[in-house]
């Protein structure tokens, strides 16, 4: 029960605690980093280096009035913000953090993560339609459209990895990368997946569902207090999920680069996994700081006319090469 192995209670508790704590820390980290990118300092007052900023935020959100607008659909309005953190945490069950560290290894791991990422869009859609407000409805519509079009090539871009590793299980994929990371043979797939991951987690520059300059705050305009906090935390868990998924799929997961193993197998695995996912978190923040939001038609054009053909091309070429090598 308390041994270090996949699915033991100790490991589950550790992963859940780490993910929740890191999601809270991520809010502070993003604001701080964004400050540095903008030649500012960011929040640095609460605790050492402002590390307790999230605690202050949570206290503020909990003590705020938890208001449900009288014109809203009450049941849907309450259910919508719960969906996104739950499905994002469920996705974390699939992530293999290190040898023997993980919650469950389904043989359809990738499909499960994709399904849960698709479920997350219900949060934005239901929140948008339940608010009964034109800006929220626009935000919900945009979320739905964005999810449908970017989910398509997100899945297709992963099929190259699946072909190479011959498995849908994320742990098998990591183990198949022991001799070489998939980012080299699957570079196109990596780029496409990266863009789709940004869009899936509503990260900038694809934050059209809540585009502040256009539709106030999009689908969460009517939300206040901890209901807004759940949307917020859910998106940050989603960002952390994508930052863990990209190393697992393309950067060798827990495998050390250039054989730089530190300590034991498990410790080294956790260390390198953390380094890689932190690097992607920093990259996501950099993307937020640097890139401008596209128009909605540009987003759709880009998705269907550039990214989808690219991912199909990647799939075709990878399949052809594997077929030729196999025969």
């Amino acid at each position: 029960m308390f041994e270090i192995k996949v699915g033991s209670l100790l490991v589950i508790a550790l992963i859940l605690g780490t993910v929740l704590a890191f999601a809270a820390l991520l809010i502070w980290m993003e604001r701080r980093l964004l400050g540095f990118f903008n030649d500012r300092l960011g929040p640095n007052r609460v605790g050492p280096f402002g590390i307790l900023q999230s605690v202050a935020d949570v206290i503020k959100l909990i003590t705020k009035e938890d208001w449900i607008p009288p014109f809203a659909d009450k049941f849907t309005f309450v259910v919508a913000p719960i969906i996104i953190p739950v499905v994002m945490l469920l996705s974390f069950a699939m992530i293999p953090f290190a040898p023997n560290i993980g919650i469950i290894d389904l043989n359809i791991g990738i499909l499960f993560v994709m399904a849960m990422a698709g479920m997350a869009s219900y949060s934005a859609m239901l929140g948008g339609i339940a608010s009964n407000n034109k800006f929220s409805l626009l935000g919900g519509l945009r979320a739905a459209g964005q999810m449908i079009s970017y989910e398509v090539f997100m899945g297709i871009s992963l099929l190259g990895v699946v072909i190479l590793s011959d498995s849908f299980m994320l742990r098998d994929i990591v183990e198949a990368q022991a001799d070489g990371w998939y980012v080299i043979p699957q570079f196109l797939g990596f780029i496409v997946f990266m863009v789709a991951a940004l869009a899936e987690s509503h990260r900038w520059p694809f934050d059209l569902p809540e585009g502040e300059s256009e539709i106030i705050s999009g689908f969460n305009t009517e939300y206040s207090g901890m209901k807004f906090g759940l949307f917020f935390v859910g998106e940050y868990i989603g960002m952390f999920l994508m930052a863990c998924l990209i190393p697992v799929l393309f950067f060798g997961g827990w495998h050390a680069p250039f054989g730089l193993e530190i300590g034991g197998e498990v410790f080294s695995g956790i260390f390198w996994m953390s380094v890689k996912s932190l690097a992607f978190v920093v990259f996501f923040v950099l993307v937020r700081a640097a890139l401008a939001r596209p128009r909605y038609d540009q987003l759709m054009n880009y998705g269907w006319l550039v990214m989808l053909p690219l991912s199909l091309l990647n799939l075709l070429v990878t399949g052809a090469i594997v077929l030729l090598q196999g025969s």
Partner: protein
Amino acid sequence: MLKGFVHQVNIIWSQIVSLWLVFLHLFRKADTVEYPEIKPHTFPRWRGRIILTRDPDGEERCVACNLCAVACPVDCIALQKTEDENGRWYPEFFRINFSRCIMCGFCEEACPTHAIQLTPDFEMAEYVRQDMVWEKEHMLINGTGKYHDYNFYKVAGKAIGSKGKGEARNELPPTDRRSLLP
């Protein structure tokens, strides 16, 4: 076809360039001034908190002429004139509501005696709204403020206490009007 391809490549290249340029900002010094620890320098003529000054002899400069209250665009100054036994005018009360004051400095410009002056103090927040209303005893300082030598009653023609007509600085003795008759 080729044109569209070149266009897409240009778009992607410009995104990469902007990512790199913004990344370089990580190594720049932040422009933020951490305010409560590092105070900004305010110049002597900064228009901040309003004070009432005294003349070099230590008497109140204010002569309760009401010009400041008239000049004030938001009507935040209230005062009442009274006189001491020497005939010297002074305000019985002098009240400024700092929650209304817009720090325009018109009162300072209107003041004929340099009594009311604006100072570089800009930290005027209070927890209780009523604390924003300052009375004379809060504003009156034991100094001359920005103008060290000016003493209104020493240069004005008004007779007060020991000083009679014609005894002020740079003032000629009163002319006997009858001597001017043809």
